[in-house]
């Protein structure tokens, strides 16, 4: 299944795009999706990201459905 990944903040800089699409197997979990994102953009391993699936912060064991919207959320320091 193809998933569209949306990148926010510094993750968009590291991924060098605001969104891209990656291929995953049906039944893949959030953990699998995260690993896939790291494989495509290894620089993301350094910055502590969390994934939101369909606008909800996700636990790693959740199964991701076919048309899910995935957002990559890094922490921001600035104030």
């Amino acid at each position: 299944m193809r998933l569209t990944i949306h990148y926010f903040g510094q993750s968009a800089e590291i991924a060098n795009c605001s969104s891209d699409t990656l291929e995953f197997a049906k039944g893949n979990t959030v953990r699998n999706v995260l690993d896939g994102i790291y494989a495509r953009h290894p620089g993301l391993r350094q910055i502590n990201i969390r994934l939101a699936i369909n606008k909800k912060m996700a636990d790693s064991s959740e199964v991701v459905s076919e048309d899910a919207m995935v957002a990559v959320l890094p922490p921001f320091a600035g104030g």
Partner: protein
Amino acid sequence: MLNAEEKSRYHRHLILQGFGEVAQEKLKRASVLVIGAGGLSCPALLYLTAAGVGRIGIMDDDRVEISNLQRQILFSSESVGRNKAQAAAEELRKRNPFIELAPIPERLTTKNALKLFGEFDIILDGTDNFSSRYLINDAAVLSRKPVVYGSIFKFEGQLSVFNYQNGATYRCLFPDPPAAGTVPNCAEIGVIGVLPGIIGTQQANEVIKIITGIGEPCSGKLVLYNSLKAEYTSVTISRNDDAVEKVRNNASLFEQMDYALFCGETSTNPRYEIDLVEFKRLLADGHITVLDVREPSELPELSYPKKIQISLRILPENTSKIPSLEQVVVICQSGKRSLAALRLLKDEYNFRNLVSLKGGIGQYV
């Protein structure tokens, strides 16, 4: 009770359906501790003052710098050099004599946090670093106070309300801080001036909603704002009871906790950091190589007789370019990334010839 002058002042609130005198009285009885008097806090303070929040604490031990004026809208050229909390309080008093403004020209620490938080109803996080944000989270959980959170990165912002009516906390969202030096702050990468204005004003709105009970505070919700597209995205956050329990169970350790160390913002070993005086001396001696770990696009451009530029992000793939015998000084804008680079190269690649410039070259130029 509102006096005649206050009723004139807040007239537009008093006649507003859905708000009115009851809400205005609640504002008058409320107290907010604003931590940091910078980009987010300046607009938040202006609106909380205008709204008539009865008591506002302003905490900052820093001084106004000229580069603050591009976005920290409480300050002017005359404020430069003054303590930020005091300069802010003075400006705000001119605008509303009916409220109490309490400047606290100190840094928030584990020694003063719990007592201070106990004295206010709501905490507004206007800080610009992770150690403060985690400290604020933990102190708020321990003192059972809600935190109105805002943060910014270049053109994007985040907004939420933590620890409100058993809602999610900062650690439910980001349990652990990022590795030192990996997430730069505004001093290192810049920020569009209006952005903290937008996010900070929204923080004031959340404070007002919590005090008065109107609308729905952003509890359990992370609002993301992109100023380039003027787009909002909201993501729901669940409370992680383990993350909260862990803080409560470690209550007795709180005062000993070194958040700066936890977030990698300082080094345990002073031997690995040199100051500006030492750096200049080494440059004059002529035997060092400078390793610049900023992004190539970062300004100012610097030249040294022997210089290598490799950004921290891609350091692991480029270690072969770094000399391993002669003295290498690692630099970045504020000293955080260079320290992270030093740790990485020392611990994982066995470099023994590195020091990091403490405080970065930002202080140099």
